[in-house]
């Protein structure tokens, strides 16, 4: 239960912090409760992640400092959250007013959302989360400082947003608390989507349809519980769109500032947001200025430029911690896009498919986004979005003009983002990379459903099919997850079972048992999440890159030993290619290479010296801080 306590406390702190900042800078005038709740929470998240970066860079990422800041946030913001009860009452009122058939959909959606929350605690980190997204936070929580992950040195140049919250929650509680926070961020994303629906005049039927479309999008739901950070990027991107829409219409400096902050946070939390969210945000802010507001003075374009400069300044402010982090850790503030000191690794320039395959995928848009099963695609946007879009486009024309304008602009912003992505990365199909942009199509589809059910005697067939489709997808989604409940209580009480560990944890736990603190393990593989924190800090890093140079294989074990490695773990699924080099390499005199485990998935070697007269050149040592460092051996 401490997992839930710490996560809720952390969530509350984010919310209070956001409320405090909004109050200090007088960024209020809400139209809807979902906008206020989600904006406060995400703004607090953004500022806290920046604070954690600075604490980490200063080697001050201690539990005492984290708790002090969180308690201060609660103390500062708690007096301004008196409206929370009213917000919850408004939501329940919505549901109360719905007909019984729609109450059923609300109930089933709530069940599905709770099941995802259970899965976020019960399921282990998988895939990339086991390789990086939960590993770097684990190192940071243990070492009390922010440093590049040794075996993902260059990749650690990415913007760190969700990872900072994971690190804080791991320091306070556990990895499950961090994963549960991802679920809470998913709820904030849902609240922002509801806020966008409010802007479009969508009421309860359309809103529940929007939520069903959201929670049946596997490109969103897959990342609620797997330990990655895509949900953060999606939530912040949607918040940027919401506030850009408000800024364009209301033309208040506060709205431009919030649009800028959220755009910057969105860019940092997920780099792929940069080419897709920014064009849509600018479109939403500038478009309404085609008709000059009567409240403006004689120089409307000068005011627009001033507003855009405010937007740009706030975006830069929210990205500044990231630039400082990359400058201090790598000497390159704009890595991995621009290197000032020489040639760098532009690892973001990825190509996933051949030109012929890329052309085929592009020809099948948007069906590829909805039905594609391509390698690394990682899920789909809900088929219901594409299914219901024609209703929205046809019946949405009957909306009152202000709502129609908003929904039209939102949809065009989404379309612009998708087209931009196709231009910059035609050979990368991954809906999670442009999650916020794709979710922006949902309000148009939801509008159609809202309008459809206003007709009492018309469209009976279509109404039946629409309701039936929503119910069908909900039931199938629930029955994909219903077996998790029995694992939930085990996870909460901290009992280790296979749900908390992935397939790689077995081999890594054996390494943990065999090693003593400070041992160096050479990991020929990707997945290290279950290693002890000291082993993670001591494992092979950038300085050991020459050990992948197989042209010197005769000297291989000697070079490995001199670098201070005692164990070599090879994950065969990805790194079996190294095994022939290891077995053919000459074993130096005085050194024994013992194969401790040889399993279908991995091999673990141990190097031992027959006498201690020949020490390695490097070792791993803990100084005055909890951090471990690879240092030269002092004779």
């Amino acid at each position, binding site marked *: 239960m401490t997992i839930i306590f710490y996560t809720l406390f952390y969530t509350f702190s984010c919310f209070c912090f956001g409320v405090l900042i909004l109050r200090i800078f007088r960024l209020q005038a809400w139209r809807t409760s979902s906008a206020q709740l989600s904006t406060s929470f995400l703004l607090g998240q953004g500022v806290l992640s920046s604070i954690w970066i600075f604490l980490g860079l200063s080697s001050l990422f201690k539990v005492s400092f984290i708790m002090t800041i969180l308690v201060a946030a609660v103390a500062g913001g708690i007096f301004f959250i008196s409206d929370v009860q009213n917000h919850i009452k408004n939501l329940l009122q919505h549901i109360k007013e719905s007909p019984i058939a729609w109450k059923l959909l609300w109930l089933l959606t709530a069940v599905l959302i709770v099941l995802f929350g259970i899965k976020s605690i019960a399921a282990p980190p998988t895939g990339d989360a086991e390789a990086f997204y939960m590993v770097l936070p684990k190192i940071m929580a243990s070492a009390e400082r922010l440093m590049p992950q040794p075996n993902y040195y260059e990749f650690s140049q990415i913007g760190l947003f969700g990872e900072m919250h994971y690190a804080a929650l791991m320091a306070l509680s556990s990895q499950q608390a961090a994963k549960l926070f991802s679920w809470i961020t998913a709820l904030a994303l849902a609240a922002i989507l509801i806020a966008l629906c409010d802007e479009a005049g969508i009421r309860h039927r359309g809103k529940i349809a929007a939520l069903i479309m959201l929670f049946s999008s596997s490109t969103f739901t897959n990342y609620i519980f797997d330990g990655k950070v895509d949900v953060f990027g999606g939530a912040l991107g949607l918040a940027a769109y919401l506030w850009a829409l408000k800024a364009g219409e209301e033309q208040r400096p506060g709205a431009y500032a919030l649009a800028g902050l959220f755009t910057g946070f969105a860019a940092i939390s997920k780099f792929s947001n940069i080419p897709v969210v920014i064009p849509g945000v600018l479109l939403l802010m500038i478009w309404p200025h085609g008709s000059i507001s009567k409240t403006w003075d004689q120089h409307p374009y000068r005011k627009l430029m001033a507003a855009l400069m405010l937007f740009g300044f706030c975006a830069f402010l929210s990205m500044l911690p990231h630039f400082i982090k990359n400058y201090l850790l790598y000497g390159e503030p704009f890595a991995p896009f621009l290197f000032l000191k020489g040639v760098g690794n532009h690892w973001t320039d990825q190509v996933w498919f051949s030109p012929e*395959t890329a052309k085929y995928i592009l020809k099948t848009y948007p069906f590829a986004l*909805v039905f594609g099963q391509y390698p690394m695609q990682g899920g789909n946007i809900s*088929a219901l979005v594409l299914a219901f879009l024609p209703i929205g486009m046809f019946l949405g024309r009957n909306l009152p003009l202000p709502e129609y304008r908003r929904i039209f602009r939102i949809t065009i912003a989404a379309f612009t983002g998708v087209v931009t992505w196709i231009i910059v990365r035609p050979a990368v199909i991954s809906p999670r990379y442009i999650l916020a942009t794709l979710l922006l199509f949902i309000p148009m589809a939801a509008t159609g459903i809202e309008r459809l059910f206003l007709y009492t005697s018309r469209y009976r067939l279509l109404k039946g099919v629409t309701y039936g489709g929503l119910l069908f997808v909900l039931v199938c989604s629930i029955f994909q997850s219903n077996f998790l409940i029995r694992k939930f209580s085990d996870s909460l009480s901290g009992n280790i079972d296979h749900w908390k560990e992935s397939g790689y944890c077995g081999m890594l736990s054996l390494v943990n048992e065999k090693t003593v603190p400070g041992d160096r393990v050479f990991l020929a593989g990707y997945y290290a999440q279950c290693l002890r924190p000291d082993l993670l800090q001591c494992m092979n890093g950038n300085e050991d890159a020459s050990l992948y140079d197989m042209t010197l294989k005769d000297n291989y074990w000697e070079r490995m030993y001199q670098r201070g490695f005692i164990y070599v773990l090879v994950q065969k699924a990805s790194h079996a290619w190294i095994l022939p080099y290891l077995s053919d390499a000459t074993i130096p005199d005085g050194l024994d290479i013992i194969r401790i485990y040889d399993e279908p998935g991995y091999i673990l070697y141990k190097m031992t010296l027959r006498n201690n007269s020949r020490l390695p050149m490097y070792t791993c040592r803990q100084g005055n801080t909890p951090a471990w460092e690879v240092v030269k051996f002092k004779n």
Partner: protein
Amino acid sequence: MNTEKTGKKTFIFELAVSAWIVLHLFFWFVLNGYPDLSFKNQLPFFMHSTVEKAHDTIWPYVWRPYIWSENSIKENKDEKKK
């Protein structure tokens, strides 16, 4: 007459959009809904075979190999030719 025409147009619109929705639901079920369904073993056999046949038919249109896999397939083919 106009009311009749409007009624017909509305019905055609309803039919077309309903078919569009049902088609999407079918493809979604075959590709995403059915594979992880916890009670799929309790479904009638004809459903299994229909869904699996549909899955095999649709699969080539929604999947292509990753570039590295494609390159190694091409290299294997070139080696065989030699």
